[in-house]
């Protein structure tokens, strides 16, 4: 929105946009009310009780307890309303629906790399269909970055060694900014891109076009063979490593007796820091792949493993996994 040609309000392109904006306008209204009330009082008193002659002094008023309690309690109540409303919007913002379409993003000085499950890879460009929830799993190859979509009113940090995620439901076809919001060095301001929201049919057409090297999971399968994972992780379960079939989303028992649920963070950790959580009944033989595999290939591998568990709906990126490399140092 513009006033006199000056933009003052960002595009509202996602379902969150109007929720967040409603909150924004509510707080503006409350703030304006208090700011104007205080301003009027202060200016009025300044004029009305202006000192007129030397030696004049003000009335002796020490305080007024009921009044002071009143103006402590009322702001408290209003603040609680803001908190509650803000928290409910936030809850919505942090909980991707199960049916969300999944995309991976990797931040790297100074670009955003996106990978679609269907195989497309993009740099500083992202194509998505309108009217469909999209979940993005984010990681970083070097320092902190932050994936920011102002038109969707959401952002999330990209943290090396962890997966974080955000989701949105983009409603309005068009092109919008992608920014990096966490300072990441020299060309931080250049780490920007464009997200293109397309009609679903157009998006399908876009998916078909362009040379692809198979889906993300297929690329992962190739990695699985190239890195010789397949020599130990036999489907039969008789290999030196556990079978990877049908494990995603399920608990697995570890050597120390504890159990973990297999999710993206666990898979990532097991590949990069294989001694950290050894599955019960197996020897800690697996080499670490830290430094040998890039964030993008890692994601492909994980997608491959996930594809071996066709019944698992989603493997949420939950627990932060420590110890992961900024692989492929330039």
């Amino acid at each position: 929105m513009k006033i006199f040609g000056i933009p003052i309000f960002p595009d509202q392109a996602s379902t969150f946009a109007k929720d967040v904006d409603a909150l924004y306008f509510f707080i503006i209204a409350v703030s304006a009310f208090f700011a104007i009330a205080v301003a009027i009082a202060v200016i009025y008193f300044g004029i009305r009780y202006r000192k007129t002659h030397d030696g004049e002094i003000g009335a002796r008023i020490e305080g007024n307890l009921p009044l002071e309690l009143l103006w402590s309690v009322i702001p408290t109540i209003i603040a609680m309303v803001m908190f509650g409303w803000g928290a409910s919007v936030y809850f919505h913002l942090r909980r991707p629906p199960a049916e969300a379409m999944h995309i991976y993003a990797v931040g790297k000085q100074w670009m955003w790399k996106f990978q679609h499950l269907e195989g497309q890879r993009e740099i500083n460009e992202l194509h998505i269909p309108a009217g469909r929830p999209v979940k993005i799993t984010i990681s970083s190859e070097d320092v902190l970055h932050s994936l920011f979509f102002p038109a969707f009113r959401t952002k999330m940090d990209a943290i090396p060694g962890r997966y974080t995620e955000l989701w949105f439901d983009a409603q309005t076809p068009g092109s919008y900014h992608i920014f990096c919001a966490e300072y990441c060095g020299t060309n931080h301001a250049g780490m920007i891109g464009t997200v293109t929201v397309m009609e679903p049919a157009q998006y399908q057409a876009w998916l078909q076009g362009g040379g692809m090297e198979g889906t993300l999971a297929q690329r992962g399968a190739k990695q699985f063979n190239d890195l010789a994972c397949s020599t130990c992780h036999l489907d039969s379960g008789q290999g030196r490593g556990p079978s990877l079939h049908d494990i995603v989303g399920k608990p697995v028992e570890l050597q120390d007796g504890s159990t973990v649920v297999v999710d993206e963070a666990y898979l990532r950790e097991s590949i990069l820091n294989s001694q950290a959580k050894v599955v019960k009944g197996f020897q800690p033989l697996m080499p670490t792949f830290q430094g040998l595999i890039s964030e993008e290939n890692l994601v492909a591998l994980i997608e491959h493993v996930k594809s071996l568990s066709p019944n698992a709906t989603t493997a949420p990126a939950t627990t932060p996994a420590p110890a992961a490399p900024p692989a492929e140092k330039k």
Partner: protein
Amino acid sequence: MLDKLKIPERHYLNNGHGLASWLLTKDHKRIAIMYLISISVMFFLGGLFAVGIRLELATPQGDFVQADTYNKFFTMHGIIMVFFFLIPSIPAVLGNFLIPPMIGAKDLAFPRINLLSLYLLWFGAIFATVAMVSGGVDTGWTFYTPYSTTGSNSHVVPMALGIFIAGFSSILTGLNFIVTIHRMRAPGMTWFRLPLFVWAHYATSLIQVLGTPVVAITIVMVGVERALGFGIFDPARGGDPVLFQHLFWFYSHPAVYIMILPALGVMSELISTFSRKTIFGYSFVAFSSLAIAVFGFIVWAHHMFVAGISTYAAMVFSFLSFSVAIPSAVKVFNWTATLYKGAISFETPMLYAYGFMGLFAIGGLTGLFLATLGLDIHLHDTYFVVSHFHYIMVGGAIMGYMGGLHFWWPKMTGRMYSEFFSRISAILVFVGFNLTFFPQFVVGYLGMPRRYHSYPDEFQVLNVMSSAGASVLGLGYFLPVITCCGR
């Protein structure tokens, strides 16, 4: 009126003139004056970097300086302003000068330690200068890891040392104030007769003593990781990059109250003096200072809502953040009530006080936007945040500092400033400030991230407004130098 005042023959200004009589003094008043000179230099140095920032941002292309240079500009600007100007400003200058007479003591409890704190600030500044002239630092004043430990190839280690040393200056000042206020009050000067200025400094000192060591150690850890390759924060070596943020903000959030609380104390004095009334609700105002200091320690993670902390942790920190807003609101209401039925006059300090109330209110209210979870996700790390903290720290803390400095200037120097020019500069500061920073709220909501040396074209008009406003603001800050030196 001033001519009628009798100044004693020998006072701290003419009691010895040589350099040694100043550099080795244990007189809190002389130390305060040396602080005043030191931090004024810092303020104008930091301001020079701000000029660089605003020139670069006048055009979207980033064509005034290189990206790296710009990054060093805003880093130096932030470091100098925060660690070498704002944190020492009111406590070290006005607090040092005024706390002893306000409580009826001859000097601070530890005059030698007081001098030592000044030297520590200087030593810290020397290291910072070394870092600056040998090529600068580009991490931002927040030093986020792993960029500061592994990514940046600038001079992080000497800068970290400089801040570490300056931190001890702050700790010692706080310690000195606490002991002085506890032990050296004149007979009959009970806690509830203390001037509110003293209460505010007491609360500030608690933060300085409890919080500063944490940032000092954190900064040392950054230096150690950089120099020796430890894996504290670097995930490639098994460290946790988010740990740094917890440690950093555990200090640096309360640190913003180190900057603003003393200004709140100054305000309470100015408003009651210039409306010729006692403050409305003395004990509420006194306790709200303590409440701000205490709550300030439990809200740090509101800087980290999108840094991968859990949904529930975010909820707790959002909830707590609102708790700081209440005592701040109480102060504004009590000042307003103090004006009621007063005998109000508008000398320069009162103009600063009025300006302060306006800017502090806007700064505080925009804090509500940022504490609100759903909204902060969008606003975090945009210009909205830049504007918010400038309203508080520059709008609030510096208005307080300037107001206080004008108010006590005759007492400190035995000379009067030019009332006419000082009023003009107070007004210029207020107007220039709003011109500079209000557009930044708008451009922030539009989505412009902070620390960008270039930006998409559609943000230009608002940035030009901001740059133009900055020149008015700069003039407002500079005018007092001319008018006080010109007489």
